[in-house]
């Protein structure tokens, strides 16, 4: 008799879970390193993290066709989870090129930083690959709690603590709401598996509706959809800038993942309501984000509002609620994660210059003082705005086309208005950097790693805009697969 028959349970297929295991082990190693060494060598910590993440990334890339479920259906590996995880790990590796110099400059070198980063990455990876409410809840907490602490990790800086506290309270409310939604879904179907819950057919659907509303309401707070966005600008502005970059890229992918998994499943019963509610929220979100960004004097805060506006565009794609919309949304999400991150990372480098306060005036004539940074920032801004050769144009066009296909003209037209408004603040920065004359100033020089990462990201923004098929060939089957569930 085999062991398997003896214990009468299925042995989990760990092969599907290897990337997460590697990230988890990396986190534990970093945690022990921080405990063992009184003065942790930060180069060592960064090397360990990069090696761990690279191993996980290589495993994922070489086993990209890995499919299946493990842990009794708790954990699903499909092309959606693999695609999102590849981007999350890549962006985290890129981020590590920027953190050390910044933290040294701000005198905020903490050993906690590294393992919190890997635990939040792990949470994001799990969020991208589960249909189970319990696992989604735990992963949400893992990402969020790491983010609260990372936001507060700036020595002697009050705004950082203030942002962290606001994030904590609103984040706690979001988690409470999402788990309250889980209660109602559980009462409705007696299961935590979203596929089972949403395909369950009971005559009385009131618990299902209540549950979905609460669950998605909680996720909406996490994403920063407009009536519930209060924490976002403060947390983004207060956080150390590399962390802001991390939250606006990896965090955004992670929090959107469960929404994108739920979206195809609810269309059978609630298509019309979904289109109306999500469409309205999307319009409010991108209009508000763009108009408020227009009047910001602080560039970091401006980019935070621009991040809200981009959540709005993503939601506009989600409101189309068919496979075409979902393709546009996934492409948008992945491309935005690169350009949003690049924008904040440029700020992270520039903040190391003396007397730099992220004010608009600081950018006057940046081209003359530090041409390289000005060009990289200009590419990021033009991509956020959506100028043709960059990927920003392509993704906005994709969203607009899917809106036209879904006959959501009102959302499409208002989206064009929103993009028009956003011209104001993106182009103003570009004009300030390139047209304005100002005497040369001492601007921080990026290190070799930083230079290489920024060039890589800027080039990938152009390549993804010119050759969309590179990514599209993976996205297209993914979104159709999600709709077949």
């Amino acid at each position, binding site marked *: 008799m085999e062991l398997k028959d003896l214990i009468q349970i299925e042995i989990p297929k760990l092969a599907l879970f290897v990337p997460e295991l590697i990230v988890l082990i990396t986190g534990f190693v970093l945690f022990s390193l921080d405990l063992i060494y009184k003065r942790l060598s930060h180069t060592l910590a960064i090397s360990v993290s990069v090696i761990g993440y690279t191993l996980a990334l290589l495993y994922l890339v070489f086993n990209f066709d890995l499919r299946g479920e493990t842990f009794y259906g708790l954990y699903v590996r499909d092309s959606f989870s693999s695609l999102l995880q590849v981007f999350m790990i890549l962006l985290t590796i890129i981020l590590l090129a920027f953190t050390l110099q910044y933290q040294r400059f701000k005198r905020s070198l903490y050993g906690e930083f590294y393992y919190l980063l890997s635990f939040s990455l792990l949470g994001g990876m799990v969020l991208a690959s589960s249909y189970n409410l319990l696992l989604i809840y735990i992963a949400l907490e893992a990402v969020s709690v790491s983010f609260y602490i990372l936001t507060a990790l700036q020595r002697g800086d009050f705004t950082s603590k203030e942002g962290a506290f606001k994030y904590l309270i609103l984040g706690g409310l979001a988690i409470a709401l999402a788990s*309250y939604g889980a209660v109602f879904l559980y009462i409705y179907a007696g299961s935590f598996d979203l596929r089972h819950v949403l395909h369950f057919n009971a005559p009385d659907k009131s618990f299902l509706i209540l549950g979905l509303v609460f669950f998605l309401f909680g996720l909406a707070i996490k994403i920063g959809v407009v009536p519930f966005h209060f924490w976002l600008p403060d947390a983004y502005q207060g956080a150390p800038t590399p962390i802001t970059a991390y939250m606006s890229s990896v965090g955004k992918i992670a929090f959107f993942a469960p929404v994108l998994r739920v979206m195809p499943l609810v269309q059978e019963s609630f298509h019309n309501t979904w289109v109306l509610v999500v469409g309205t929220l999307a319009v409010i979100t991108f209009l508000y984000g763009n108009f408020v960004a227009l009047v910001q004097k602080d560039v970091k805060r401006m980019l935070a509002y621009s991040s809200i506006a981009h959540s709005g565009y993503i939601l506009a794609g989600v409101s189309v609620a068919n496979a075409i919309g979902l393709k546009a949304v996934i492409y948008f999400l992945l491309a935005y994660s690169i350009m949003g991150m690049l924008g904040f990372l440029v700020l992270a480098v520039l903040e190391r210059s003396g007397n730099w306060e992220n004010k608009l005036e600081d950018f006057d004539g940046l081209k003359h003082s530090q041409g390289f940074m000005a060009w990289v920032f200009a590419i990021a801004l033009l991509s956020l705005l959506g100028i043709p050769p960059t990927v920003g144009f392509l993704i906005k066009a994709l969203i607009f086309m899917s809106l036209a296909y879904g006959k959501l003209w009102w959302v499409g037209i208002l989206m064009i208005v929103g993009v028009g408004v956003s011209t104001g603040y993106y182009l103003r920065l570009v004009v300030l950097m390139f047209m304005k004359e100002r005497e040369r100033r001492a601007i921080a020089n990026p290190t070799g790693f930083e230079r290489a990462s920024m060039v890589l990201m800027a080039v990938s923004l152009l390549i993804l805009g010119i050759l969309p098929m590179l990514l599209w060939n993976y996205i297209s089957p993914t979104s159709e697969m999600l709709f077949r569930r």
Partner: protein
Amino acid sequence: MKIVPLEAYLILSVLLFGLGVFGMIVRRNLVAILMSTELALNAVNIAFVGADSHLGLLDGQIFALFIIALAAVEAAVGLGIIVAIFRLRKVESSDELTDMGG
């Protein structure tokens, strides 16, 4: 045998949840705001346990255990942040958290 119906659990939990959210909005003291979020999470626990006794399953209680553990994590982090705020400035009211105009 069910002595307490599901509705009773749900009414209690909705009241508690409402109290928590209300506290988050009304209270000004930082620690009190943190306590209010814990109240809301405990309301979820009651609802889960009630759902379990209604359905005759155990999964909800497992979820409740996880919520208890993670609520403790959140409280620890929250208190840490409050201490850090208090060390930088002697602030204990949310009215004074307005450095960024938010």
